[in-house]
């Protein structure tokens, strides 16, 4: 595969296909994400938005097409290897680790950047202990970033939905990702929480993290994104700036009467 002329392309998705039985969840979707940008994917329910994230992060193997990250073909690479290459993600349904505290959930994100093996950990060797302390501090920093340091030692189950989503973001941040994929981060949040989330996302972008956001909440997407990709029934029907997408005939049709803000 020849490399693209632009070398600031971080993620390059070409002709991606994913079927579930007879259903084409994602059908020949092609897009590219530039480093340092904020890109959103919108579309009606069942348009294949989350599937795109699941294929890029390696949870599903694609049935066709390729995914390139930093110029490297990562199609079909196992999820844990993709994660360690610098792709972090959150989940629509949080998928937090229920038996761990908030801080410990975030510490799991540091896994790929720590090395202690079973023996070092089991015998509690000094190397493992000092690494543990470093990981704890780093995870605490990530919690501060999302404003949850007060909740560090609470069980995750005691948190309200909005804060659970923030734990998911902190956990992904502790992986120090280059690309962060957020699956419906604004879902189920009050408007002042969405405000806070927008500030957080800008702050992350300013740190050099590229953001790929799947979202339902239109005002949120339109105010935040540099580019918007619209999916419908697995196909990409539009891509452009929020203004371009808003006026696209296909998009209005897909939402059938629903007013696009």
């Amino acid at each position, binding site marked *: 595969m020849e490399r693209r002329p632009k070398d600031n392309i971080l993620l390059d998705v070409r002709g991606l296909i994913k079927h579930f039985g007879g259903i084409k969840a994602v059908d020949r979707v092609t897009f590219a994400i530039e480093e340092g940008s904020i890109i959103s994917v919108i579309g009606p329910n069942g348009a294949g938005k989350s599937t795109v994230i699941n294929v890029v*992060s*390696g*949870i599903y193997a694609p049935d066709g097409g390729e995914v390139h990250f930093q110029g490297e073909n990562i199609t079909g690479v*196992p*999820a*844990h*290897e993709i*994660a*360690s290459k610098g792709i*972090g*993600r959150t*989940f629509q349904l949080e*998928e*937090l*680790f*229920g*038996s*761990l505290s908030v801080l*410990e959930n975030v*510490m*799991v*994100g*540091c*896994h*790929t950047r*720590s090395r*202690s*093996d*079973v023996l070092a*950990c*089991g*015998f*509690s060797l000094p190397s*493992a202990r000092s*690494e*543990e302390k470093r*990981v704890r501090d780093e995870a605490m920093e990530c919690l501060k970033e999302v404003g949850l340091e007060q909740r560090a030692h609470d069980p995750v189950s005691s948190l309200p939905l909005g804060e659970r989503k923030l734990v998911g973001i902190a*956990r992904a941040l502790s*992986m120090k990702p280059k690309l962060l994929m957020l699956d419906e981060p604004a879902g189920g949040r009050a408007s002042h929480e969405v405000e806070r989330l927008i500030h957080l996302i800008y702050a992350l972008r300013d740190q050099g993290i590229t953001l790929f956001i799947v979202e339902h909440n239109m005002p949120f997407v339109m105010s935040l994104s540099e580019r918007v990709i619209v999916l419908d029934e697995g196909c990409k029907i539009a891509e452009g700036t929020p203004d371009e997408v808003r006026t696209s005939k296909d998009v209005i049709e897909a939402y059938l009467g629903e007013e696009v803000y």
Partner: protein
Amino acid sequence: MKPVLKPKLIWSILVALILFIPLVAGSYVISVMCFIAVFGGLAVGMGLLMEQAGLFSLAHPTWFGLGAYVSGIVAVRGIAPPWLGSIIGAVFVGFVSYIVGAPLLRLRGYYLACATFGLLLIVEISLAQLGSLTGGHEGLMGIPPLALGAFVFETDVHYYYLSWALCLATLWFLHNLMGSRIGRAIKAFSGSEVAAKSMGINVTRYKLKVFILTAVMASLAGSVYTFYLRFTQPGIFGFPLLVELVTMIIIGGGKTIYGPLLGAFVVMWMRELIHMYLGGLLPRMTGEVDAIFFGVLIIVILIFMPGGLAGWAGRLFEERRKVLGEASQG
């Protein structure tokens, strides 16, 4: 005001008690405590696998039995000294659990339970049928005592300290492990496998690691057991032991590291009491009374203390701390 009871203090008191018991207790108590250490340590590993890693493996008696047999056979045949036999047994079990675990750990939930239960039956039958090697149904006889250099482990007290050293070392090691990045990875994949993978955790490899680790620990316990009894039989490592271990885990509580050991203590002393007091009353039915008693106890525990004794104690401790915390603030 701070809570008076600190975990470290409790542990120090317990270890001191364990060191102290042989000085005052008779050989009966020492012998029961010896079995508590062996089976408790075994239950700790199995509880971790089942309740914390979410791997429903029933092969634990098998690893225990293979460790016992390999070290026993090595010692009986004079291939190597008993202590080296224990290590050979552990390496052998590590190897077998790797070969078995790599394909079987792809199975989930009850499917893994069924497959590992099949393994348990296969190994039990094989041990009984390989008569020339294992002594068949009658069991392996003439196992020499364990010796380290000139020191020979002969008395109950020797094996008491040996078995408790192994049991507490297992507990300490697993406690450290579960508080580390490895333990978090294990709890992570049992909570959400997709999320664990997306955090960069090689779930397949960690499942295999924790499976092999607990199998090797079970094998070492099996070696201590076989050198203590100086005899071993295939029937010891079958379904009854599995039921015994599950009883210990449920009663003690598998969500904590020490719960199953607590369970072993309660189960084995209760059984002794049943035999002591009901033995005279119902001389022909102690076995049945025992089974019914523990059956009912499991049901009661599952209804009223779903986290087992350890979970219940932990909650009490937590509430006490909260009350004390509020009192000190107010």
